[in-house]
């Protein structure tokens, strides 16, 4: 099992900071979120920064990035600043 950590509005929707997941890729995790919480949550998750074990999933295979036993996936809202 991997652990998914929610931030921002996703945390509000999920009602939890962390959850266990048996998804084996980021894509499978997103589908799981869609089934569990609906389309809005799916869109929020897809548009999040997805960090798998401290690495930006965008640079490690995108939505195909593998999740392993003990992996931690962080879903963070895209923000700006300066």
């Amino acid at each position, binding site marked *: 099992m991997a652990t998914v950590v929610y*931030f921002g509005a996703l945390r509000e929707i999920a009602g939890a900071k962390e959850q266990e997941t048996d998804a084996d890729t980021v894509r499978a995790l997103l589908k799981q979120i869609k089934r569990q919480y609906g389309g809005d949550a799916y869109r929020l998750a897809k548009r999040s*920064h997805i*960090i798998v074990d401290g690495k*930006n999933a*965008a640079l490690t295979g995108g939505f195909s990035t593998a999740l392993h036993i003990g992996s931690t996936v962080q879903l963070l809202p*895209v*923000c*700006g600043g*300066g």
Partner: protein
Amino acid sequence: MKLPMYALFDLSAGTIADYPIDEDLFRQYLGGKSLAARLLYDLSPPGADPLGPEAVVIINTGPMNNTGAPSSSRFNMTFKNVLTGGIGFSNCGGTFGFMLKRAGYDGLIFKGQSHTPLCIEITDGEITVRDAASLWGLDAEQTQQRLPQAYGKLVIGPAGENLVRYACAVSGERVAGRGGAGAVLGAKRIKAVIAFGTKKAEVHNKEKFDKYVAKWTKFLKGHPMTGESLPAYGSGGLVNKANASHALPTRNFQKGYFASADEFSGETLAYTKLTRNSGCISCPIRCERRVRVGGREVKGPEYETLGLFGANIENSSLALINEINYTADILGLDTISLAGTLAFAMELNERGLADFGVSFGRTDNLIDVIYRIARREGMYAELGEGSKRLSEKYGGAAFAIHAKGMELAAYEPRRSVGMGLGYAVSNRGGCHLGGGYMALLESVGVIAMDAQTPKGKPEWTVLMQNAMDAASSAGFCLFTLQTFVPAFLYKTGPSSKINAIAGKLLVGLRWFIGKLSAISPGGLFFNSKYLFPHSEAIKHATGLRMTTGRFLEIGERGFNLERLYNLREGLSAEDDALPERLTRTRQDAYSPDTVVDMETMLPVYYKVRGWDRKGVPTHKKRRKLGLL
């Protein structure tokens, strides 16, 4: 064409004179930091003491202030940097710039030094200099409460009066934070500058301007960054992403990850402390956070303050950060340099090099220490000198986290190496904004540019610096630049294939990006809402033949002139550097690329800039920019 009118104050002689800006200067520099750099270069003698009577301080606006263009209420201060000895500039929101323009002046130039505290009042073109002895000693909030409510105000607190090197100037609850803007006013005994006026801005082509402003405002409101993210979480929304990327400075930049970061993140602030969000005049973004401190609603902290008074000193209390932010503001202290200096002092203590009574994780005495720094009491006076000077006395240069003498912002550059280059080459010292803010493309933004590769970073840094300087010179907030990242990339998501391709393209296009300066302005003869919407708005407001290329050239000219000022004041290529911790010590011992590779990036940066190997703008570059 309406040309800017400045007022020149000689505080030693007690004279005031109008100082009109001619058309040539206006065309070349517009206003704000670029025009102020020209004035500082021309009006101040080389080698002047930044706190002496010969120093020149400029407070100015840009042509877009008071026009109603979106996010155009920013004003600028330019002066000799009290921390670095080079150029100092600081940009501030709020109402002062708007009111100064309405009062009939585009800028104020101060030279000389008063022996008594002054309040400068500008009311509809009339300038009055009043005694401010009764205000001296008051904090920034108390001072402003005693001044007429309707006026735009710029004041200093005790830190400015006591010449703390990183004292800021305060306008409402906004600050001109960096480089000692408050100290240079304090040295001149200027406690307050206030302005009120009823004059509306003259816009060259009102019909086209109004139409374009409406279109641009709609675009900003509809863009995911300026219409959703910044209003929802403010800049503090970056805390968790920076932390997840190991780019959140922790324990004086020893690490980039802090386990408790979420406790002071923008999301936590939004859900637990936010009373409402707010914004500057004419700004549709409304990024400002409002929070409660001591039962009163005040401005909340920005990302830099959250990161540096959170992870970097190992504090996880958001309530305390809110209190520190408020305290620093009313005392007139730049939170970035203050926090950086405190973190350095904590590490000095940890290593047994010096004990200022501060240590990582200890928070019970921080507010007291901050008050003592502002008052320069006892040993705390040394903390008011900044981390560079502390390291010269007590050692620890390798971990004194500054560039040119000014402390770094809250992006750990070993996880955003282009931001590291930017810190090193920023004209005012360790500043993310003066450095081109590559963190947006590398570590916290929606495009997945490889944060660790040095490839492409010099080229993009030059482009970003030029664009940011141009926007600032016109009077715009830099947040308006963040819409150049296309909205659809937010919808596809940062982890999508298309965003990954975009990230690779940023690196792949480096040759072309590096040539943009060479082909500007002629090669970029268009304006686009999707790239830099500012240029079209400037064109309609001023009547100048403004294009994207000319817009970027104004930024490039200003940046190069600031560089020439730095060189004249004794800075050199040796000062384009970072402390050894960031360039020699891997953040991750197993990842060789988690250092800032200055040896690779700096020569490329100089070449793209059109500078020689010693970082001096070449004759060809100076001729192109009219800087001979």
